[in-house]
Protein backbone atom coordinates (compact mmCIF):
# COMPACT_ATOMS: atom_id res chain seq x y z
CA UNK A 1 0.00 0.00 0.00
CA UNK A 2 1.43 3.40 -0.95
CA UNK A 3 0.08 6.38 0.87
CA UNK A 4 1.39 9.90 0.69
CA UNK A 5 3.36 10.90 3.75
CA UNK A 6 1.71 12.89 6.52
CA UNK A 7 3.88 15.95 5.97
CA UNK A 8 2.61 19.33 7.10
CA UNK A 9 1.33 21.11 3.99
CA UNK A 10 2.28 24.77 4.01
CA UNK A 11 -0.70 25.75 1.88
CA UNK A 12 -3.06 24.83 4.67
CA UNK A 13 -1.28 26.98 7.17
CA UNK A 14 -2.65 29.91 5.26
CA UNK A 15 -6.16 28.60 4.71
CA UNK A 16 -7.04 27.52 8.26
CA UNK A 17 -8.01 30.25 10.63
CA UNK A 18 -6.74 30.69 14.16
CA UNK A 19 -8.96 29.85 17.10
CA UNK A 20 -11.55 32.57 17.53
CA UNK A 21 -10.93 33.90 14.06
CA UNK A 22 -8.57 36.57 15.36
CA UNK A 23 -6.05 38.09 13.03
CA UNK A 24 -2.56 37.49 14.29
CA UNK A 25 0.95 37.49 13.04
CA UNK A 26 4.46 36.67 14.19
CA UNK A 27 5.89 33.50 15.75
CA UNK A 28 2.87 32.83 17.95
CA UNK A 29 0.58 32.95 14.94
CA UNK A 30 2.86 30.57 13.05
CA UNK A 31 2.91 28.15 15.98
CA UNK A 32 -0.86 28.32 16.30
CA UNK A 33 -1.28 27.80 12.58
CA UNK A 34 1.04 24.82 12.67
CA UNK A 35 -0.88 23.32 15.60
CA UNK A 36 -4.13 23.49 13.63
CA UNK A 37 -2.66 22.36 10.32
CA UNK A 38 -4.34 19.08 9.36
CA UNK A 39 -1.12 17.08 9.17
CA UNK A 40 -0.14 18.26 12.63
CA UNK A 41 -3.60 17.50 14.04
CA UNK A 42 -3.40 13.98 12.60
CA UNK A 43 0.15 13.49 13.86
CA UNK A 44 -0.79 14.51 17.39
CA UNK A 45 -3.96 12.41 17.30
CA UNK A 46 -1.99 9.35 16.26
CA UNK A 47 0.67 9.94 18.92
CA UNK A 48 -1.99 10.29 21.63
CA UNK A 49 -3.71 7.06 20.57
CA UNK A 50 -0.40 5.21 20.35
CA UNK A 51 0.83 6.52 23.72
CA UNK A 52 -2.35 5.39 25.50
CA UNK A 53 -2.21 2.02 23.74
CA UNK A 54 1.37 1.49 24.91
CA UNK A 55 0.66 2.65 28.47
CA UNK A 56 -2.25 0.18 28.54
CA UNK A 57 0.17 -2.68 27.85
CA UNK A 58 2.92 -1.32 30.08
CA UNK A 59 0.66 -0.83 33.09
CA UNK A 60 0.56 -4.62 33.53
CA UNK A 61 4.15 -5.31 32.48
CA UNK A 62 5.04 -6.23 36.07
CA UNK A 63 2.58 -9.12 35.71
CA UNK A 64 3.07 -10.05 32.06
CA UNK A 65 6.87 -10.02 32.01
CA UNK A 66 7.37 -12.72 34.69
CA UNK A 67 4.27 -14.53 33.42
CA UNK A 68 5.43 -14.78 29.81
CA UNK A 69 9.13 -15.25 30.56
CA UNK A 70 8.90 -17.56 33.60
CA UNK A 71 5.51 -19.21 34.18
CA UNK A 72 4.66 -19.86 30.53
CA UNK A 73 8.17 -21.00 29.61
CA UNK A 74 8.89 -23.15 32.66
CA UNK A 75 5.40 -24.54 33.32
CA UNK A 76 3.72 -25.11 29.96
CA UNK A 77 0.14 -26.31 29.73
CA UNK A 78 -0.49 -29.38 27.60
CA UNK A 79 -4.00 -28.80 26.29
CA UNK A 80 -5.16 -30.32 23.03
CA UNK A 81 -7.75 -27.59 22.36
CA UNK A 82 -4.99 -25.26 21.16
CA UNK A 83 -2.76 -25.93 18.15
CA UNK A 84 0.97 -25.96 18.96
CA UNK A 85 1.64 -22.43 17.74
CA UNK A 86 -1.23 -21.01 19.81
CA UNK A 87 0.19 -22.69 22.92
CA UNK A 88 3.86 -21.86 22.31
CA UNK A 89 5.26 -19.64 25.08
CA UNK A 90 7.66 -18.10 22.57
CA UNK A 91 4.78 -16.96 20.36
CA UNK A 92 3.00 -15.25 23.27
CA UNK A 93 6.25 -13.62 24.40
CA UNK A 94 7.01 -12.34 20.89
CA UNK A 95 3.44 -11.13 20.40
CA UNK A 96 3.72 -9.14 23.62
CA UNK A 97 7.25 -7.73 23.32
CA UNK A 98 7.26 -7.11 19.56
CA UNK A 99 4.41 -4.56 19.38
CA UNK A 100 5.69 -2.83 22.53
CA UNK A 101 9.17 -2.40 21.05
CA UNK A 102 8.00 -1.28 17.61
CA UNK A 103 5.32 0.93 19.14
CA UNK A 104 7.79 2.72 21.40
CA UNK A 105 10.10 3.36 18.43
CA UNK A 106 7.15 4.68 16.37
CA UNK A 107 6.14 6.95 19.24
CA UNK A 108 9.47 8.73 18.97
CA UNK A 109 9.46 8.87 15.20
CA UNK A 110 7.73 11.00 12.60
CA UNK A 111 8.16 8.48 9.81
CA UNK A 112 4.74 7.67 8.43
CA UNK A 113 6.11 4.45 6.97
CA UNK A 114 7.28 3.34 10.42
CA UNK A 115 3.88 4.28 11.84
CA UNK A 116 2.20 1.97 9.36
CA UNK A 117 4.53 -0.93 10.16
CA UNK A 118 4.12 -0.31 13.87
CA UNK A 119 0.32 -0.31 13.63
CA UNK A 120 0.41 -3.52 11.61
CA UNK A 121 2.55 -5.04 14.39
CA UNK A 122 0.10 -3.79 17.03
CA UNK A 123 -2.82 -5.38 15.17
CA UNK A 124 -0.96 -8.67 14.65
CA UNK A 125 0.36 -8.86 18.22
CA UNK A 126 -2.95 -8.14 19.89
CA UNK A 127 -4.83 -10.53 17.58
CA UNK A 128 -2.37 -13.34 18.34
CA UNK A 129 -2.71 -12.70 22.07
CA UNK A 130 -6.52 -12.76 21.69
CA UNK A 131 -6.34 -16.37 20.53
CA UNK A 132 -3.29 -17.62 22.41
CA UNK A 133 -3.61 -20.14 25.24
CA UNK A 134 -1.57 -17.96 27.57
CA UNK A 135 -3.54 -14.74 27.10
CA UNK A 136 -6.95 -15.26 25.42
CA UNK A 137 -8.89 -14.37 28.59
CA UNK A 138 -7.39 -10.91 29.08
CA UNK A 139 -9.73 -8.29 27.60
CA UNK A 140 -6.69 -6.03 27.17
CA UNK A 141 -5.93 -7.73 23.89
CA UNK A 142 -9.47 -7.49 22.50
CA UNK A 143 -9.70 -3.73 23.05
CA UNK A 144 -6.08 -3.35 21.90
CA UNK A 145 -6.90 -5.21 18.69
CA UNK A 146 -9.77 -2.87 17.75
CA UNK A 147 -7.88 0.25 18.87
CA UNK A 148 -4.86 -0.71 16.78
CA UNK A 149 -7.11 -1.34 13.77
CA UNK A 150 -8.35 2.24 14.15
CA UNK A 151 -4.76 3.53 14.33
CA UNK A 152 -3.83 1.47 11.27
CA UNK A 153 -6.79 2.99 9.44
CA UNK A 154 -5.64 6.48 10.45
CA UNK A 155 -2.03 6.12 9.32
CA UNK A 156 -2.97 4.56 5.99
CA UNK A 157 -5.18 7.52 4.97
CA UNK A 158 -2.19 9.55 3.80
CA UNK A 159 -3.12 13.20 3.25
CA UNK A 160 -6.84 12.56 2.74
CA UNK A 161 -7.69 14.96 5.52
CA UNK A 162 -11.32 15.35 4.53
CA UNK A 163 -11.80 11.62 4.94
CA UNK A 164 -9.88 11.60 8.21
CA UNK A 165 -11.80 14.59 9.56
CA UNK A 166 -15.17 13.12 8.65
CA UNK A 167 -14.69 9.43 9.41
CA UNK A 168 -12.00 9.49 12.11
CA UNK A 169 -14.28 10.60 14.96
CA UNK A 170 -17.13 8.36 13.71
CA UNK A 171 -14.90 5.29 13.58
CA UNK A 172 -13.32 6.11 16.95
CA UNK A 173 -16.77 6.30 18.55
CA UNK A 174 -17.82 3.12 16.74
CA UNK A 175 -14.82 1.22 18.15
CA UNK A 176 -15.51 2.41 21.71
CA UNK A 177 -19.24 1.77 21.38
CA UNK A 178 -18.70 -1.75 20.03
CA UNK A 179 -16.69 -2.69 23.13
CA UNK A 180 -19.47 -1.41 25.40
CA UNK A 181 -22.13 -3.12 23.30
CA UNK A 182 -20.39 -6.46 23.83
CA UNK A 183 -20.25 -5.84 27.56
CA UNK A 184 -23.89 -4.79 27.79
CA UNK A 185 -25.38 -7.65 25.74
CA UNK A 186 -23.54 -10.31 27.75
CA UNK A 187 -25.02 -8.94 30.97
CA UNK A 188 -28.62 -9.37 29.85
CA UNK A 189 -29.03 -12.33 32.14
CA UNK A 190 -30.64 -12.72 35.58
CA UNK A 191 -27.26 -13.13 37.30
CA UNK A 192 -26.42 -9.55 36.33
CA UNK A 193 -29.86 -7.96 36.36
CA UNK A 194 -30.55 -9.05 39.97
CA UNK A 195 -27.01 -8.10 40.98
CA UNK A 196 -25.82 -11.60 41.98
CA UNK A 197 -22.78 -11.56 39.69
CA UNK A 198 -21.53 -8.12 40.76
CA UNK A 199 -22.40 -8.91 44.39
CA UNK A 200 -19.88 -11.76 44.29
CA UNK A 201 -17.34 -10.23 41.87
CA UNK A 202 -17.11 -6.82 43.52
CA UNK A 203 -18.89 -6.64 46.85
CA UNK A 204 -17.67 -10.03 48.16
CA UNK A 205 -14.45 -10.84 46.34
CA UNK A 206 -12.75 -7.50 45.64
CA UNK A 207 -10.14 -6.40 48.13
CA UNK A 208 -9.44 -2.93 46.80
CA UNK A 209 -10.99 0.51 46.92
CA UNK A 210 -14.25 0.77 48.85
CA UNK A 211 -15.40 -2.86 48.86
CA UNK A 212 -13.76 -4.11 52.11
CA UNK A 213 -15.16 -1.04 53.87
CA UNK A 214 -18.65 -1.72 52.49
CA UNK A 215 -18.47 -5.35 53.66
CA UNK A 216 -17.57 -4.35 57.18
CA UNK A 217 -20.14 -1.54 57.48
CA UNK A 218 -23.23 -2.76 55.60
CA UNK A 219 -25.56 -5.67 56.15
CA UNK A 220 -25.79 -8.51 53.63
CA UNK A 221 -29.21 -7.42 52.32
CA UNK A 222 -28.06 -3.84 51.88
CA UNK A 223 -25.02 -5.01 49.96
CA UNK A 224 -27.25 -7.13 47.72
CA UNK A 225 -29.54 -4.16 47.02
CA UNK A 226 -26.52 -2.00 46.30
CA UNK A 227 -25.13 -4.66 43.97
CA UNK A 228 -28.43 -4.85 42.06
CA UNK A 229 -28.58 -1.07 41.65
CA UNK A 230 -24.90 -0.97 40.65
CA UNK A 231 -25.37 -3.80 38.16
CA UNK A 232 -28.39 -2.20 36.49
CA UNK A 233 -26.61 1.15 36.31
CA UNK A 234 -23.64 -0.55 34.62
CA UNK A 235 -25.88 -2.28 32.06
CA UNK A 236 -27.77 0.94 31.26
CA UNK A 237 -24.51 2.91 31.13
CA UNK A 238 -22.96 0.41 28.73
CA UNK A 239 -25.98 0.60 26.42
CA UNK A 240 -25.83 4.41 26.52
CA UNK A 241 -22.16 4.42 25.44
CA UNK A 242 -22.97 1.81 22.77
CA UNK A 243 -25.77 4.05 21.46
CA UNK A 244 -23.42 7.02 21.20
CA UNK A 245 -22.17 5.52 17.92
CA UNK A 246 -25.33 6.93 16.29
CA UNK A 247 -24.55 10.47 17.46
CA UNK A 248 -20.75 10.41 17.15
CA UNK A 249 -19.16 13.78 17.78
CA UNK A 250 -16.42 15.34 19.84
CA UNK A 251 -18.88 15.62 22.73
CA UNK A 252 -19.87 11.93 22.63
CA UNK A 253 -16.20 10.95 22.56
CA UNK A 254 -15.49 13.13 25.59
CA UNK A 255 -18.51 11.61 27.36
CA UNK A 256 -17.21 8.12 26.54
CA UNK A 257 -13.83 9.04 28.03
CA UNK A 258 -15.52 10.25 31.22
CA UNK A 259 -17.40 6.94 31.50
CA UNK A 260 -14.22 4.91 30.96
CA UNK A 261 -12.34 6.91 33.59
CA UNK A 262 -15.18 6.22 36.07
CA UNK A 263 -15.14 2.50 35.20
CA UNK A 264 -11.40 2.33 35.94
CA UNK A 265 -11.85 4.33 39.15
CA UNK A 266 -14.55 2.05 40.60
CA UNK A 267 -12.78 -1.15 39.60
CA UNK A 268 -9.01 -1.39 39.72
CA UNK A 269 -6.21 0.59 38.12
CA UNK A 270 -5.23 -2.60 36.25
CA UNK A 271 -8.39 -2.09 34.21
CA UNK A 272 -6.50 0.73 32.52
CA UNK A 273 -4.83 -1.99 30.49
CA UNK A 274 -8.26 -2.65 28.94
CA UNK A 275 -9.58 0.90 28.82
CA UNK A 276 -6.35 2.81 28.12
CA UNK A 277 -6.26 2.11 24.39
CA UNK A 278 -9.96 3.01 24.06
CA UNK A 279 -9.43 6.26 25.95
CA UNK A 280 -6.55 6.98 23.57
CA UNK A 281 -8.69 6.32 20.50
CA UNK A 282 -11.48 8.51 21.90
CA UNK A 283 -9.03 11.35 22.67
CA UNK A 284 -7.55 11.04 19.19
CA UNK A 285 -11.01 10.98 17.62
CA UNK A 286 -11.99 14.08 19.59
CA UNK A 287 -8.84 15.78 18.33
CA UNK A 288 -9.66 14.82 14.74
CA UNK A 289 -13.11 16.30 15.20
CA UNK A 290 -11.29 19.61 15.51
CA UNK A 291 -10.27 19.26 11.87
CA UNK A 292 -13.91 19.64 10.91
CA UNK A 293 -14.40 22.41 13.43
CA UNK A 294 -11.35 24.25 12.07
CA UNK A 295 -12.74 23.96 8.57
CA UNK A 296 -16.13 25.28 9.69
CA UNK A 297 -14.42 28.11 11.54
CA UNK A 298 -12.36 28.89 8.47
CA UNK A 299 -15.44 28.95 6.25
CA UNK A 300 -17.33 31.19 8.68
CA UNK A 301 -14.60 33.78 8.85
CA UNK A 302 -13.70 33.86 5.14
Amino acid sequence: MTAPPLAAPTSELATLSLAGGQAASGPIAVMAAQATAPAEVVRRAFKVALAFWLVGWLVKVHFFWPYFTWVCLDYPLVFDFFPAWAASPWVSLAAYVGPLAVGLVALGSDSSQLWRWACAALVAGSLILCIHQNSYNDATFITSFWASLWMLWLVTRGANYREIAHHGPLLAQAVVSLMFLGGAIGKLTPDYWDGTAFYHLYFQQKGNFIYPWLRSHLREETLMMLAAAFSRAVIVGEFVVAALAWFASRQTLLLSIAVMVIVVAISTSFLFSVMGCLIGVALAGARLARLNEAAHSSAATS
Partner: protein
Amino acid sequence: MATSNPPQPDAQPALSRGTARFYRLLATAAVLVVLLPAWDTGRQLLLGTHHLRTPSFLVWAAMQPLPSMYNFGNQVWISPTPLTGEQLDGRQNLPPEATTLWVNHYPTRMMTFGAQRAYLVHQPKPMHYYLRSRFGGNQVDSHYLLEPQLDEKPAVVVKRLPLAPGTQP
Protein backbone atom coordinates in the same frame (compact mmCIF):
# COMPACT_ATOMS: atom_id res chain seq x y z
CA MET B 1 5.94 18.08 -0.10
CA ALA B 2 2.69 16.18 -0.05
CA THR B 3 -0.26 17.46 -1.97
CA SER B 4 -2.98 18.04 0.56
CA ASN B 5 -6.70 17.81 0.66
CA PRO B 6 -7.82 20.20 3.38
CA PRO B 7 -11.11 19.45 5.12
CA GLN B 8 -14.04 21.41 3.78
CA PRO B 9 -17.13 21.98 5.89
CA ASP B 10 -20.27 20.10 4.92
CA ALA B 11 -18.43 18.22 2.21
CA GLN B 12 -19.08 14.49 2.22
CA PRO B 13 -15.74 12.90 1.39
CA ALA B 14 -15.70 9.89 -0.86
CA LEU B 15 -15.54 6.64 1.08
CA SER B 16 -12.22 4.98 0.31
CA ARG B 17 -11.97 1.21 0.15
CA GLY B 18 -10.06 1.02 3.45
CA THR B 19 -12.62 3.13 5.27
CA ALA B 20 -15.54 1.19 3.82
CA ARG B 21 -13.90 -2.08 4.89
CA PHE B 22 -13.40 -0.83 8.44
CA TYR B 23 -17.05 0.25 8.66
CA ARG B 24 -18.14 -3.16 7.35
CA LEU B 25 -15.92 -4.97 9.87
CA LEU B 26 -17.30 -2.95 12.78
CA ALA B 27 -20.88 -3.40 11.56
CA THR B 28 -20.39 -7.16 11.17
CA ALA B 29 -18.98 -7.44 14.69
CA ALA B 30 -21.86 -5.38 16.10
CA VAL B 31 -24.46 -7.50 14.29
CA LEU B 32 -22.87 -10.71 15.60
CA VAL B 33 -22.73 -9.32 19.14
CA VAL B 34 -26.44 -8.50 18.99
CA LEU B 35 -27.74 -11.48 17.02
CA LEU B 36 -25.76 -14.43 18.42
CA PRO B 37 -27.39 -14.25 21.87
CA ALA B 38 -30.82 -14.03 20.26
CA TRP B 39 -31.14 -17.73 19.57
CA ASP B 40 -30.32 -20.90 21.44
CA THR B 41 -27.48 -22.18 19.24
CA GLY B 42 -25.82 -18.76 19.34
CA ARG B 43 -26.03 -18.63 23.13
CA GLN B 44 -24.55 -22.12 23.43
CA LEU B 45 -21.73 -21.11 21.08
CA LEU B 46 -20.98 -17.95 23.08
CA LEU B 47 -20.98 -19.84 26.38
CA GLY B 48 -18.83 -22.53 24.75
CA THR B 49 -16.16 -19.98 23.80
CA HIS B 50 -15.78 -19.09 27.49
CA HIS B 51 -15.33 -22.80 28.32
CA LEU B 52 -12.94 -23.55 25.40
CA ARG B 53 -15.60 -25.90 24.05
CA THR B 54 -16.40 -24.81 20.51
CA PRO B 55 -16.61 -27.34 17.64
CA SER B 56 -13.07 -26.38 16.61
CA PHE B 57 -10.23 -24.03 17.47
CA LEU B 58 -10.93 -22.09 14.25
CA VAL B 59 -14.51 -21.37 15.29
CA TRP B 60 -13.31 -20.29 18.73
CA ALA B 61 -10.57 -18.06 17.25
CA ALA B 62 -13.06 -16.40 14.90
CA MET B 63 -15.25 -15.52 17.89
CA GLN B 64 -12.44 -14.14 20.02
CA PRO B 65 -12.29 -10.56 18.67
CA LEU B 66 -15.96 -10.09 19.60
CA PRO B 67 -16.00 -8.09 22.84
CA SER B 68 -17.35 -10.10 25.78
CA MET B 69 -16.09 -8.36 28.89
CA TYR B 70 -17.98 -9.26 32.07
CA ASN B 71 -20.31 -11.51 30.10
CA PHE B 72 -22.53 -14.24 31.62
CA GLY B 73 -22.75 -15.44 35.21
CA ASN B 74 -19.61 -17.54 35.67
CA GLN B 75 -18.77 -19.73 38.66
CA VAL B 76 -15.76 -21.94 39.29
CA TRP B 77 -15.17 -24.72 41.82
CA ILE B 78 -11.62 -25.95 42.40
CA SER B 79 -11.04 -29.13 44.36
CA PRO B 80 -8.40 -31.86 44.69
CA THR B 81 -11.23 -34.41 44.83
CA PRO B 82 -14.22 -34.79 42.51
CA LEU B 83 -17.35 -32.89 43.53
CA THR B 84 -20.96 -33.99 43.32
CA GLY B 85 -23.88 -32.17 41.76
CA GLU B 86 -25.30 -31.52 45.23
CA GLN B 87 -22.08 -29.82 46.25
CA LEU B 88 -21.99 -27.67 43.11
CA ASP B 89 -25.60 -26.62 43.65
CA GLY B 90 -24.98 -25.76 47.31
CA ARG B 91 -27.24 -28.51 48.66
CA GLN B 92 -24.24 -30.13 50.35
CA ASN B 93 -21.21 -28.47 51.89
CA LEU B 94 -18.02 -28.38 49.90
CA PRO B 95 -15.04 -30.30 51.29
CA PRO B 96 -12.76 -27.95 53.27
CA GLU B 97 -9.97 -28.12 50.67
CA ALA B 98 -12.31 -27.00 47.85
CA THR B 99 -12.84 -23.37 46.88
CA THR B 100 -15.47 -21.63 44.82
CA LEU B 101 -15.64 -18.17 43.33
CA TRP B 102 -17.29 -16.07 40.66
CA VAL B 103 -15.32 -15.00 37.61
CA ASN B 104 -16.06 -11.98 35.39
CA HIS B 105 -15.45 -13.84 32.11
CA TYR B 106 -13.67 -16.91 30.78
CA PRO B 107 -13.89 -19.15 33.86
CA THR B 108 -11.22 -21.30 32.17
CA ARG B 109 -8.78 -18.51 33.05
CA MET B 110 -8.61 -20.00 36.55
CA MET B 111 -6.65 -22.91 35.11
CA THR B 112 -4.86 -21.44 32.09
CA PHE B 113 -3.86 -17.97 33.30
CA GLY B 114 -1.53 -16.71 36.01
CA ALA B 115 0.77 -18.74 38.24
CA GLN B 116 -1.73 -21.50 39.05
CA ARG B 117 0.12 -24.01 36.86
CA ALA B 118 3.37 -23.34 38.73
CA TYR B 119 1.65 -24.01 42.08
CA LEU B 120 0.20 -27.25 40.71
CA VAL B 121 3.64 -28.52 39.68
CA HIS B 122 5.05 -27.75 43.10
CA GLN B 123 2.21 -29.24 45.16
CA PRO B 124 2.03 -31.68 43.23
CA LYS B 125 -1.43 -33.20 42.95
CA PRO B 126 -4.20 -33.22 40.35
CA MET B 127 -6.88 -30.58 40.64
CA HIS B 128 -10.48 -30.68 39.44
CA TYR B 129 -12.00 -27.55 37.91
CA TYR B 130 -15.76 -27.31 37.59
CA LEU B 131 -17.00 -24.39 35.50
CA ARG B 132 -20.54 -23.11 35.16
CA SER B 133 -21.72 -20.24 32.92
CA ARG B 134 -25.29 -19.03 32.58
CA PHE B 135 -26.82 -16.71 30.03
CA GLY B 136 -30.55 -16.26 29.75
CA GLY B 137 -32.05 -19.74 29.94
CA ASN B 138 -28.85 -21.46 28.85
CA GLN B 139 -26.23 -23.03 31.05
CA VAL B 140 -22.95 -24.71 30.19
CA ASP B 141 -21.09 -26.86 32.72
CA SER B 142 -17.59 -28.22 32.24
CA HIS B 143 -15.26 -30.43 34.23
CA TYR B 144 -11.52 -30.20 33.67
CA LEU B 145 -8.76 -32.12 35.38
CA LEU B 146 -5.30 -30.58 35.64
CA GLU B 147 -2.53 -33.09 36.21
CA PRO B 148 1.02 -31.99 37.03
CA GLN B 149 3.57 -33.83 34.92
CA LEU B 150 6.86 -34.09 36.77
CA ASP B 151 9.21 -35.14 34.01
CA GLU B 152 12.54 -33.54 33.28
CA LYS B 153 10.54 -30.64 31.88
CA PRO B 154 7.57 -29.99 34.19
CA ALA B 155 4.19 -29.30 32.65
CA VAL B 156 0.52 -29.38 33.51
CA VAL B 157 -1.77 -31.58 31.41
CA VAL B 158 -5.33 -30.30 30.94
CA LYS B 159 -8.03 -32.90 30.30
CA ARG B 160 -11.71 -32.28 29.81
CA LEU B 161 -13.74 -34.94 31.57
CA PRO B 162 -17.36 -35.89 31.03
CA LEU B 163 -19.59 -34.54 33.76
CA ALA B 164 -20.60 -37.16 36.29
CA PRO B 165 -24.35 -37.91 36.45
CA GLY B 166 -26.06 -35.36 38.65
CA THR B 167 -23.47 -32.64 38.16
CA GLN B 168 -25.49 -30.93 35.43
CA PRO B 169 -29.10 -29.91 35.95
